[in-house]
């Protein structure tokens, strides 16, 4: 691991609350989102989706649709080439069904037509002959040996015997002697939990505009978190060279992980290829719910032993996750994260991944961790109540710290959990009085964070202003943070730097905007690109002065002679060096390419006060405070925004959000009326307290902050509600009917 990057320094720009560069465009409507793209001769694409949860597609007759005036192309699974097993093939089969429709809403055909009305009419003319198959949408049903098999051929070798073919992967982590550990406990409890599948709820539906040229090159404009990955997937699915496909990312109306893969892009490209004209595909909200990627639902069992003074002696968890009809690795993250907050002598987690007739899951902020940690933190809270112990004290007593061997393997370097817990303990919220029917809940959370492949190019323009070219769609304010880090490193005003997210043809590869990686990894590459530019500018100054390169240093945004022996020259500013650059060797750029390691893990602690109406089961969140380690908050307002946003989404997940299926396996709430994300008036002001325990893996100490915030709220809310009603809740969402039932003793 790269753990020696951090150097303490006094920041001039980093740490300030700079105005966001995209704000005016977004409030005036000038910003271009996915569906805003228009090109001449553009056709409208629409997708026909399966009304069945599981059905064999016996035949598709598209002739009537093709014959309709104005229809320019019809595409089915048969149009896509065969490719090798792997994620691209899974994505291909998810974006257009081949032999079977695997869930309600699975695409079975698509049309491109000269108008939306004609496209809609054409969809009605497509005849699909289905043979309806038995379906399965719930985890425990899908695991039974005689369950309907969703897809064959995915079972990995290490999966234990005794399950259906839907159980496709098994993951185990841990260390120590569980039996010995449980034997030391004063109390051992085993509890089972369930969480519903939830959707990221981004406001902008998926949209793509594809334009395939007669020469086999293609352009794609798309709303995505990762256009390089879109290119990689689409190139493989359409069997073309990556270099022949240029992908440009639009502004993005939210992603939260849900836009880290493809749901319509290969279809848009195939329609365009067949039609010989550009094709725009935009999902409706209903399509977003039925056929994009919600997160997994889960069934989790946790066993934990504790001494009466609050020491956890051993803990284990078994996690069963379903993420729809295709493989994913979310349960692996869950099994790794479950006990990451604790310093345990004996710990084990076992994760099972299960296929069901539901849409293919996508990442959702800290994928896999919120549900696992919800179960663990609920059990910790129950044991605290059992022994009448303070829940923050108990967490401090067991907290992971520098040198702790994590349950998933590594030994932690400097981490911020203890400092975060202490901050929560000292905060006035923790000791504030509570009203009638109110109670307080607390919980910890954790996320790994990620670095990954990153390319940045920084150009010193002839007028001395700076363009940072990066390749990660800005989903949380990264452009401002990146511009700030460039300004900091170069010693120039923030206003002279502009960070631009470029297309795949203009910069080397960049991993998707995920894993809270961008401010960390792109920031790191930006700092290094700036350092490269500074070295080049020193070289140019040396040339101008006619002295040795080594005799020039960079200070306060200027090149200066290293010392009296180097000669007596006035410092040269970036502006001056840039103005002469054409004559001193050409344009000046710095660039940096890296597979960034050393993304520091991040911890959070949340406190919530809730008030539960004992007659209706309605929960009101009356006060909420988030404590989280940011390493270094480059732009504190954005960091607070991430912490608040994660909490808001977690509160929705805890209280009301869920995918609801009927007997036929159809999603019955594909819209914001009955898929209830919190509205503004449902939430209190969410107070955010930033801690800064520098990450040794980043020059400025930055850690990712985007995901940890969604991890603690599930248990925080469940612990608060359970304490308010005097009964323990074991299932999410804690919708009013469930709470009222628990109150009445159901």
């Amino acid at each position: 691991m790269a753990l020696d990057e951090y150097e303490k320094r006094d920041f001039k720009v980093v740490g300030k609350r700079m105005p966001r560069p995209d704000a005016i465009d977004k409030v005036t409507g000038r910003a271009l989102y996915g569906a805003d793209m228009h090109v001449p001769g553009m056709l409208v694409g629409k997708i026909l989706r399966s009304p069945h949860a599981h059905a064999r597609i016996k035949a598709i007759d598209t002739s009537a649709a093709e014959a309709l005036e104005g229809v320019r192309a019809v595409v089915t699974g048969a149009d896509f080439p065969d490719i090798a097993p792997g994620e691209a093939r899974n994505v291909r089969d998810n974006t257009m069904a081949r032999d079977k429709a695997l869930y309600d809403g699975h695409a079975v055909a698509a049309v491109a037509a000269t108008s939306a009305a004609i496209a809609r009419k054409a969809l009605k003319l497509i005849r699909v002959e289905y043979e309806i198959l038995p379906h399965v949408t719930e985890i425990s049903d899908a695991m039974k040996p005689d369950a309907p098999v969703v897809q064959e051929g995915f079972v990995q070798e290490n999966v234990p015997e005794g399950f259906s073919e839907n159980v496709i992967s098994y993951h185990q982590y841990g260390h120590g002697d569980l039996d010995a550990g449980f034997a030391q406990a004063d109390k051992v409890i085993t509890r089972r939990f369930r969480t519903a599948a939830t959707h990221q709820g981004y406001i902008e539906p998926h949209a793509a505009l594809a334009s395939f040229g007669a020469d086999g090159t293609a352009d794609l404009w798309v709303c995505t978190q990762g256009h390089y990955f879109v290119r990689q997937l689409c190139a493989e699915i359409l069997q073309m060279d990556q270099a022949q496909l240029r992908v440009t990312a639009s502004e993005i109306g939210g992603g939260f992980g849900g836009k880290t893969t493809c749901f319509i892009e290969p279809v848009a490209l195939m329609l365009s290829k067949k039609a010989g004209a550009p094709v725009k595909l935009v999902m409706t909200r209903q399509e977003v719910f039925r056929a994009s990627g919600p997160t997994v639902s889960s069934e989790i069992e946790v066993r934990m032993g504790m001494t009466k003074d609050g020491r956890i002696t051993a803990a284990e968890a078994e996690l069963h996750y379903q993420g729809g009809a295709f493989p994913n690795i979310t349960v692996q993250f869950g099994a790794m994260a479950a006990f990451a907050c604790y310093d345990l002598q004996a710990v084990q987690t076992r994760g099972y991944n299960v296929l069901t007739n539901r849409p293919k899951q996508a990442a959702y902020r800290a994928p896999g961790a919120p549900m696992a940690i919800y179960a663990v933190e609920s059990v910790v809270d129950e044991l605290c109540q059992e022994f009448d112990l303070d829940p923050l004290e108990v967490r401090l007593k067991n907290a992971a710290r520098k040198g702790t061997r994590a349950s998933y393997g590594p030994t932690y370097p400097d981490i911020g959990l203890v400092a975060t817990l202490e901050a929560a303990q000292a905060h006035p919220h923790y000791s504030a009085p509570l009203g009638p029917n109110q109670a307080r809940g607390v919980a910890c959370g954790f996320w790994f964070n990620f670095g990954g492949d990153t390319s940045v190019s920084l150009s010193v323009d002839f007028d001395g202003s700076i363009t940072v070219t990066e390749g990660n769609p800005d989903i949380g304010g990264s452009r401002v943070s990146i511009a700030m880090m460039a300004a900091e490193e170069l010693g120039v005003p923030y206003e002279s730097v502009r960070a631009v997210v470029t297309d795949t043809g203009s910069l080397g590869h960049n991993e998707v905007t995920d894993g809270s990686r961008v401010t960390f990894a792109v920031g790191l590459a930006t700092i290094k690109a700036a350092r490269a530019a500074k070295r080049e500018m020193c070289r140019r100054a040396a040339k101008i002065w006619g002295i040795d390169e080594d005799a020039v240093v960079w200070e306060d945004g200027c090149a200066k002679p290293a010392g009296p022996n180097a000669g007596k020259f006035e410092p040269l500013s970036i502006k001056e060096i840039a103005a002469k650059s054409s004559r001193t060797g050409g344009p000046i750029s710095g660039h940096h390419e890296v597979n960034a390691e050393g993304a520091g893990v991040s911890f959070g602690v949340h406190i919530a006060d809730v008030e539960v109406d004992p007659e209706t089961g309605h929960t009101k969140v009356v006060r909420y405070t988030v404590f989280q380690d940011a390493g270094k908050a480059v732009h504190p307002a954005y960091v607070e925004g991430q912490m608040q946003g994660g909490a808001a989404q977690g509160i929705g997940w805890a209280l009301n959000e869920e995918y609801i299926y009927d007997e036929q396996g159809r999603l019955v709430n594909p819209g914001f009326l009955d898929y209830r994300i919190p509205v503004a008036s449902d939430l209190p002001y969410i107070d955010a307290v930033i801690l800064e325990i520098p990450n040794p893996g980043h020059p400025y100490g930055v850690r990712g902050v985007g995901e940890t915030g969604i991890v603690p709220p599930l248990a925080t809310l469940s612990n608060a509600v359970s304490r308010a009603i005097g009964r323990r809740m074991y299932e999410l969402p804690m919708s009013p009917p469930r709470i009222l039932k628990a109150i009445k003793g159901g």
Partner: protein
Amino acid sequence: MQYLAPTSVDEVVAALAQADGRARVLAGGTDLLVQMKSDMIAPDILVDIKRIPELREITREGGGWRIGAAVSGAEFNEHADICADWPGLAEAFDLIGSTQVQGRCTLAGNLCNASPAADSVPAMVAADAVARVAGPNGTRDVPVVDIPVGPGKTSLAAGEFITSIFLPARAPRSADAYLRFIPRTEMDIAVASAGVSLTLDDDGSCVAARVALGAVAPTVLLVEKATAALIGTRLEGAALAALAQACESAATPIDDKRGTVEFRKQVVGVLARRAARVAQNRAEERA
């Protein structure tokens, strides 16, 4: 598709008669346009009633109020006198949608969309409101409670439409209240709801009461036994418990994505009890 914007009631009647079932009345459009956009309905003709002057007015009539069928929620709630007489209906109407929706939504539209969960309907039924219906055979007055006959269905005959809603004159020491249960705090649909309108005598005894429930049956429910539970009482604990019990028993809800039978029954009793208390307090203040 054809869009008509007539300026008189007679023209609407003629247009509907000619259209032979292929036309829909367009008031605020906050249900209709949403249903058209999501491909649920595809009418050939839209007859917009917002250009008919008398349908945009709120007028005094025999001590009561006549509300034109095209009066929006925002217009209603800016009318201080009607809100003073009917604070419960005002709060029910105001619950519909957001500020944007309030600028367009109407009582008649809420009623004719015939959702069992419509917010203004239990309040109108508790108020003993009467709809005036115009049609090929002239005009008739129909109690609001008799308009919805099932989810999405009304008792209006082909070619008929509602021109106004009438609210009767208010006795002294009368008031109403409406409460709904939603999992969120706004922008949601009632899982159960209750409207209560009552009149007290000088001693604070209840002399008249109407209790109507929403979202717990295929149509709005007027609960006679709830009236009996309140009349002659000062809404003491026992009376309110009897009221809640009457509502629970009258409710015949379904299990669905929004709530369970058990939950809806329990909560509708609680809402009726709480709404009755609010109405009582308001009536006492009006003395």
